[in-house]
């Protein structure tokens, strides 16, 4: 993993009039990974996707997908042929039935996976004769996902694929993704607010805030390196600056002092002990908290 980058941006910028949506984004997604893309609304996630798929032009910097320049007309067509976007604003034809939509789409893609089609129709509980406009949002997203998977897209770009789905249906989607990536070399770029789902299936995470990448890396590495160090003192917690790289955030509340460290916490622990607290506890940190602490540090 990491030998080839399916997605790579360098100093990517995008301005809409007065608004700087992307301010120098450096994103790297290795082939074969499931990369979770996290960020607040308005942080630049959708803009990033649109630039990668050639739907809008960047203002500055570079973006490459499959090593091809996303901003170039012909390269962009090639990118969209090999990558599939599944989002809530997908283009399905409301008047078509599920079956018609499938046959229509399949006609553009030789190598269509009919075996997968049958399996996913069942798993996703989609009926061939249902008209698309009668489908709920969640069902439409599942149909869009079926189309993307059966085309054999090398890169799946997913924007909230489980939004509106009940837990069982959401789990079917996650299972379909996991199976897809197990069968062949595929890459999944997953924008989602469902942090628990990202923790469940992603092996990489990228967090965007105010148009820039503020954290990225393998999920395992982040989990191994983020620590919450909680100290209690017998007096008001000292207003000490925790020195050094690795301190993500310090919070003082009366006699309690909490430090979030992103480099394992060794340096923080040494400094903490020197302050003679009554108790020191070190705990691992889940992705939700990592997200909140990283974003808060940026504010």
């Amino acid at each position, binding site marked *: 993993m990491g030998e080839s980058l399916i997605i790579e941006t360098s100093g990517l910028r995008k301005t809409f009039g007065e608004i700087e949506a992307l301010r120098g984004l450096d994103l790297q997604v290795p082939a074969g990974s499931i990369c979770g893309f996290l960020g607040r609304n308005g942080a630049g996630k959708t803009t990033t996707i649109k630039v990668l798929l050639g739907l809008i032009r960047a203002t500055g910097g570079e973006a490459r997908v499959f090593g091809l320049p996303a901003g170039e007309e012909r390269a962009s067509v090639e990118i969209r042929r090999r990558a599939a976007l599944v989002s809530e604003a997908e283009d399905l034809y409301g008047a078509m039935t599920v079956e018609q939509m499938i046959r229509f789409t399949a006609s553009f893609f030789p190598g269509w996976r009919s075996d997968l089609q049958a399996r996913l129709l069942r798993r996703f509980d989609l009926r061939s004769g249902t008209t698309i406009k009668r489908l709920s949002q969640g069902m439409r997203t599942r149909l869009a996902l079926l189309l993307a998977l059966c085309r054999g897209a090398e890169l799946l770009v997913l924007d909230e694929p489980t939004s509106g789905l009940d837990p069982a249906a959401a789990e079917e989607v*996650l299972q379909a993704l996991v199976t897809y990536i197990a069968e062949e070399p595929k890459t999944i770029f997953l924008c989602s607010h469902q942090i*628990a789902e990202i923790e*469940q*299936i992603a*092996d990489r995470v990228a967090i965007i805030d105010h148009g820039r990448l503020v954290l990225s890396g393998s999920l395992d590495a982040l*989990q191994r390196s983020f620590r919450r160090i909680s100290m209690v003192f017998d007096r008001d917690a000292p207003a000490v600056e925790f020195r050094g790289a690795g301190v993500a955030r310090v919070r003082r509340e009366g006699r309690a002092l909490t430090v979030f460290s992103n480099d394992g916490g060794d340096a923080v622990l040494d400094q903490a002990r020197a302050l003679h607290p009554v108790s020191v506890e070190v705990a691992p940190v889940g992705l939700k908290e990592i997200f909140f602490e990283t974003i808060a540090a940026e504010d």
Partner: protein
Amino acid sequence: MLFRPNASSGLPIYLQLMEQVKHAIETGALRPGEQLPGIRPLAEQLVMNPNTVAKAYRELEHEGVIELRQGSGAFVSRNAAIRRAPDSLRAAQSMVASTVQRLRGRGLGDDEIRRLVEAEIARIPEKGGRRG
């Protein structure tokens, strides 16, 4: 026998899966020479990233706990390194039981006891030593 790791605990999933496999071997649920589930079926069953399952299996092989045979799958090593006699596991259980009872006797609640144990496990030792 292998169940879903807790993805939100902050503990890397591949480590949790490794622990589960080792525990299965310790308790005899998996025996030396027996085959483990394949990477892909296990990933599908537990709805986990197959890369993560693969990582857990590679690390287990590195530790000598399992063997990966090209084309056949993963098997528990005949001389699995973590084979603790059932006796020592029982001894460990009774040590834990007596400690928990003593702490409860001192008025500590179960949640506090749990926190103390987890903090101790997550604690970085004074001089070197391995973490996590």
